[in-house]
């Protein structure tokens, strides 16, 4: 088994929820810095893959390796500390904190200060870092707003920004444009992709919108019933009849 070249690798990953097959013998390799899109119908195991990689769901069988290290069965917290972050289909924010506080807290936790109970959370250096990230994500106008008051597009961006603030080696995004109006989808992706490519983070994103996948993914994996039915360049995968049948219900 050669870990060189693949930053993240799954070997024979299998997961059943009762009779439902969410993953069966998934052996995937992800290269450093690539931007991979995952498509597939509802229930095909896309989110389960993210949940297994991040330690939220334990696979029935199979291993997950990150930089050659076996991370199968670690807690989400431990996986996060190793450098794998994720964002969520439904943004998971601290709704009663301001956008800036959300980010500053993320930075403090990354710095290992989650248990500090004396020095203030909000410090000049953390504020500067947080503001820089807000600018990158186009959220600076919302800095002082409560996260609960944000429009949907901004919530999605902040959700990714919180994960990005951990400076992960791998970022998993679960439907970064779901719930965003058709007009704003490309705005969200046009903000995200340059930032992510600029840092060289390996990004894997689950997406339902074919146009988004086609435009932004460098490589596409098509899932159906817990298996990869096609993989390759976006054009090739989305033109594959098996994929079209699974996703659109017609060849």
């Amino acid at each position, binding site marked *: 088994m050669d870990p060189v070249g693949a930053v993240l690798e799954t070997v024979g990953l299998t997961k059943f929820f009762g009779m439902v097959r969410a993953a069966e013998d998934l052996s995937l390799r992800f290269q450093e810095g690539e931007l991979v899109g995952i498509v597939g119908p509802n229930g095909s195991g896309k989110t389960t893959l993210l949940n297994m990689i991040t330690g939220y769901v334990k696979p029935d069988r199979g291993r997950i390796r990150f930089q050659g290290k076996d991370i199968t069965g670690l807690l989400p*917290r431990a996986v996060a500390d190793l450098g794998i972050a994720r964002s969520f289909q439904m943004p998971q924010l601290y709704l009663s904190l301001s956008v800036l506080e959300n980010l500053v*807290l993320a930075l*403090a*936790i990354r710095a290992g200060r989650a248990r*500090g109970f004396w020095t203030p959370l909000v410090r000049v250096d953390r504020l500067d870092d947080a503001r820089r990230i807000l600018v990158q994500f186009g959220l600076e106008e919302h800095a002082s707003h409560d996260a609960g008051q944000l429009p949907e597009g901004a919530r999605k961006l902040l959700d990714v920004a919180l994960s990005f603030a951990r400076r992960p080696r791998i970022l998993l995004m679960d439907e970064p444009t779901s719930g965003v109006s058709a007009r704003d989808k490309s705005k969200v992706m046009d903000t995200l992709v340059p930032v992510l490519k600029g840092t060289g983070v390996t990004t894997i994103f689950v997406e339902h919108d074919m146009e988004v996948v086609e435009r932004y993914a460098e490589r596409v994996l098509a899932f159906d019933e817990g298996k990869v039915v096609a993989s390759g360049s976006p054009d090739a995968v989305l033109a594959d009849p098996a994929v079209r049948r699974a996703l659109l219900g017609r060849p």
Partner: protein
Amino acid sequence: MAIALAGLALFLVVPPFLPEWITFLLTLAWAKALAVLGIVLLLRGGLLTFGHALYYAVGAYTAGFAVKFLGVHDGLVVLVLAVVTGAAASALLGLLLARYRGMHFGLLNLAFSMVLYAILLKFYAVTGGTDGLRLPTPLLAGVKPAAAHLRLTIYYVTVVLTALLLYVAYRFTASPLGYTLRAVRDNEVRVEYMGASVRQAIYCSYIVAGVLASVGGVLAGFSVGHIVPEVSFWTQSGEFVFVALLGGTGSVLAPVAGSIVFEFVRNYAFKYSPYTWQMTLGLVLLIIIFFLPGGLWSLTGMVRRWIR
């Protein structure tokens, strides 16, 4: 901060000119505010405990036992002991309780506090049972306070110590751990995914809350001069929750405001309607919930907006 210090100055300057019974009520209010503060800190993490009098009682009986069995008469030594016992008790029970949320957390706390109540009640030889324990006038760093100024001395010790602990609590709320606790209330999943431990945040906060209540128990015990098992009874916990809602959770100063208002409302309610004073308190709480859901402290926000 400036307003808080000005308020503190007021509480330090005025009492010598007040009747003794008011000083006594204020002492009690400040002491109990510490237990309420513990509840407020946990509420910021979305945790409501119905048994916080447990730690208040741990503090009070630490004082009682220190005097009765250890012959410790110095109030400051007793306070240090109470910090230790309060931390030990909450660290022990916290191991279990930090796993629970919502109703289970609230009621398990209640259960533990009632277990302590039963122990205090039944182990007569040690605890004095329903008679309780007497707490004689404490020494302060080896000095016996003058009898003529006893009430005032205890008042000042209470106010200064409570003010110090309010500052500690303020630092706590502004710290990464304080924010993590708020983040836990908002979204536990996210906290774990960001690499912080939800259980650790709750556990540490629970110990802080326990220590605060324990110190409050000592201060209240010395100001009354006598402790009884009722300090651990569920109605005492209920009173703390009542005061926490009355004051609000918007600031570490809110418990003091709530506690002072509560002591005076109860005092007058009892004076003018000895048979229906609970009803008066209930009405006050109803009015607060309907018109000031953020507690009395939300009045300060209204004043601030009005000044602008």
